[in-house]
């Protein structure tokens, strides 16, 4: 690993200042991708600004009918949170099945969303639930936030502080794990809530997480696994790699969508 300067600010303002001061400073929000990348010399930030010590960045609460989850809340904390389990059990279940216990106890929801790995689980939930990504400067709707593989609407120096999720009537996630990494080879999040019936797919798209109009239309008219039988899932724009071809991923999207509906 290249030499790096470590900061652990207590306030968001200090964090923003540290990010601005560093030559190539990066936010550290659990480090489950960033630290491995740095060890391989594929990233070389000058400074790491660890946001896990900032007041109010950890934990989940309910604000009216809206779940608010701090950006530095670990996957294990989301999975175990009583409020998340009550108001959006599908999201808690998703968090409880990310990676392995070591990853779940270090990785955070904000870190996952800022990285926007095309095979990460959380982006599909945020998109399907119509969540709002809250940063130190603004609120971004999930529809605007995800902008392709590892690309987001975040601007330089902008830090995610929390996410806001309007509690859905029904929601669930089904993942078929890539066997080595345990990331999603295909993950499908289905939701029926204040933002309508939405289906978001992760792990499969050439351009990262995406919504599937055909699956959404079918479920909007008939919320049942059987309603998806007639939907055509095209392999266009899907990833082909050593773990799964595009046609296999297309097939799995439908299988996982049906399983998610059955679980919701």
């Amino acid at each position, binding site marked *: 690993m290249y030499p790096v300067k470590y900061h652990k600010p207590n306030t968001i303002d200090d964090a923003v200042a540290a990010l601005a001061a560093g030559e190539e400073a990066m936010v550290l929000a659990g480090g489950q991708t960033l630290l491995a990348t740095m060890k391989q*010399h594929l990233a070389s930030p000058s400074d790491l600004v660890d946001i896990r010590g900032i007041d109010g960045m950890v934990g989940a609460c309910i604000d009216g009918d809206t779940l608010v989850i701090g950006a530095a809340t670990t996957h294990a904390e989301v999975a175990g949170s009583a409020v998340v389990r009550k108001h959006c059990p599908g999201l808690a279940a998703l968090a409880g099945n990310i990676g392995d216990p070591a990853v779940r106890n270090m990785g955070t929801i904000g870190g996952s969303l800022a990285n926007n790995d095309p095979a990460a689980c959380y982006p599909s939930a945020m998109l399907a639930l119509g969540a709002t990504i809250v940063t130190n400067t603004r609120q971004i709707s999930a529809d605007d936030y995800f902008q392709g593989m590892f690309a987001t609407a975040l601007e330089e120096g902008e830090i995610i502080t929390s996410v806001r999720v309007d509690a859905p009537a029904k929601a669930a996630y089904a993942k078929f794990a890539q066997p080595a990494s345990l990331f999603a080879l295909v993950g499908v999040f289905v939701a029926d809530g204040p933002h309508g019936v939405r289906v978001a797919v992760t792990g499969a798209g050439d351009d990262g997480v995406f919504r599937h109009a055909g699956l959404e239309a079918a479920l909007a008219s008939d919320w049942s696994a059987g309603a998806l039988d007639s939907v055509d899932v095209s392999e266009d724009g899907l990833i082909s790699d050593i773990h799964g*071809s595009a046609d296999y991923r297309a*097939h799995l999207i439908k299988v996982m969508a049906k399983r998610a509906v059955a679980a919701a």
Partner: protein
Amino acid sequence: MSSGIGKSVKRKEDKRFITGKGRYTDDHRMDNQAYAAFVRSSHAHARVKGIDASAAREMPGVIDVLDGHQLTADGIGNIICGWAITSKDGSPMNMGAWSALATEKVRYVGDAVAVVIAETQSQARIAAEAVEVDYEELPVVAHVAKAGAEGAPQIHDNAPGNLIYDWELGDEAATDKGLAEAAHVTTLDVTQNRLSPNPMEPRSAIATYDDAEEHYTLYTTSQNPHVARLVLSAFYNVAPEHKLRVIAPDVGGGFGAKIYIYPEEITCLWASMKTNRSIKWTSDRGEAFMTDAHARDHVTTAKMGFDSDGKITGFKIDTIANLGAYMSLFSSSVPTYLYAPLMSGQYQMENIYCNVKAYYTNTVPVDAYRGAGRPEATYLVERMMETAAREMGMDPAELRRRNFITEFPHQTPVLMQYDAGDFHTILDKAQKAADVAGFPARKAEAASRGKLRGLGYSTFIEACGLAPSKAAGSLGAGVGLWESAEVRVNPVGTVEILTGSHSHGQGHETTFAQIVADRFDIPVENVQIVHGDTDKVQFGMGTYGSRSAPVGMSAVVKAMDKVEAKVRKIAAHTLEASEDDIVIEGGQVKVAGTDKAMAWHEVGLAAYIAHNLPDGMEPGLKETAFFDPVNFSFPSGAFICEVEVDPETGHTEVVNFTSADDFGTIINPMIVEGQVHGGVTQGIGQALLEQVIYDEDGQLLTGSYMDYTMPRAADVPFFSVQHHETPSPNNPLGVKGCGEAGAIGAPPAVINAITDAIGTNDLAMPATPLAVWRALQAASKPIAAE
């Protein structure tokens, strides 16, 4: 006796391992220690036109940058393969030159071209990235199926067509006749997926040069430190043997990958002399994937003929084997003498012919890995039996039974003479434990949940206890494969065993102590095992090929025989009795039928005090023995695997796995069970999960755990482990070796179960969800989600 042979004694070494007190190579720290980082080729095949280290030399902490031209100029020799294979036309194998640091050409991604020595590991690695190598890229051949093709890129000048050897075993004419006369012939194409060994502890080395004594010390992750010293001395000219000490301290797994002497150890030793610093290098996981010797990687076509009663009439095998860019230490023997002689399996066969062509490719060298040749043979034989049974409409267990060998010793047509076995009984045990009779009901229940359930067999035999030296020598081995032991009884009666075997997870500190405790009837705590240091232990051959029990322990037994003879003489003399009346039991050396006795430790003390020894007897109580086996040992087993396949996703779950093994005499059932668990898990890994993939440019696509799937605990069921002991007549304990059986026997059992479940034989390893889904599609099975 509570801690003797056959008792599940808790492992003596585990206290330090599970409390973090193990001392692995990387845990050691020398005075004046510096770090090495290797500059590695990013091309699979290229000419090295120049190396510019000027920028790297100016970087913080850098002590020196050394390259292959300097190494060669200092007389460091090329890396060798120690087993000479002769092609069927009588010509020797074509061994290409392998310098620890490449000079003219690089031949795989990861090939080292220079080494940076710096004050810290981080400084060394950062500076290594600043070394500029001018490469002229050459065309690449990364896959063995293409290595021998017309116009394939030439990797070594002295190996035309990249062919290393074209070797055969058996009688081709008789086999062709047997096949021609067969009532049924089964043809099968199989591939052996390429594996990466992945021991938990990565390779590591610390080399120290003492310029006053002109003496080198090497701490390294070796399964055979004496062999390492011999090769480093005799072939690589690092130092004469008496000026080189090799220490393999606690080693965290080997599986074969730590048998060989790699470029890094050689370079660290040489660099320690060049810089007069202790040089440490520890592989990271990425380097391990890139540079540890890989395994398997065969492509095979085979035919097996049967008469109308289902008896085998002939077995003909054509294999091409990938040995990678260079020939690693024992690479040549793996697809030849560790492979073809196992083709008779547990079956009566008169006619076998096996042809093996080995090729160079632009990939990391391939060598032995848990099972080494025997998994490849077993996979072929056992998939052949299962496939043939299905084609002939027979029960696969019945087809096997009709062909089982029942009398021992048994001479096969492919060199081996099986020592002992009882194949019907072990299959009976496996079938009973697996409740084969209840399978149809379980299959129906699974179908009600939408799952396809299948059952597969593997009844296998392997050759362990490597190896009778004379026989190995006649087949091309460059070394003898005996083992040594020294038994030291201390003046207080405690015992030290110095063994040439090396424990890197196997539990020798417990099992070797058990055979001493059993023999002298003393507490197992009073026995200490010393191994892994060429300055402490007499020359020994190390641990691989499940040889520590059949060969290593046998040497201990021979040495104990000598100790016991002397103990009897001393006791008879002291107690004024006949040697024949002396018995050793209960911590005493007694005169049978009397109350005359010496405590065990009193005999030890008498030997060293030497005030009252028989006339002419030398003082002391310490004996050495070398044991050279007269034959291999032949563990055999019957495995039954049950799987459930999810037809919607192609995912396979191993739901039941039953093993019935014949390891001969069992020293410690708990440790043997652990070996079976680990071996079967690696076998399931090969069958379902693991695969090294190089692309057409020779780039490694599976260079981390993000893409290379190791089996996890959740990927395997609770195992049912059965035993049946038919002692080997060829060693004093009757042991056969248990380290590799699981990895050898499991893969065909798993694949036979999946192919049974999905109703098609056309499935290659690893049976990933994608592969199984494709096979299901090809077989036009209905897929529920569609």
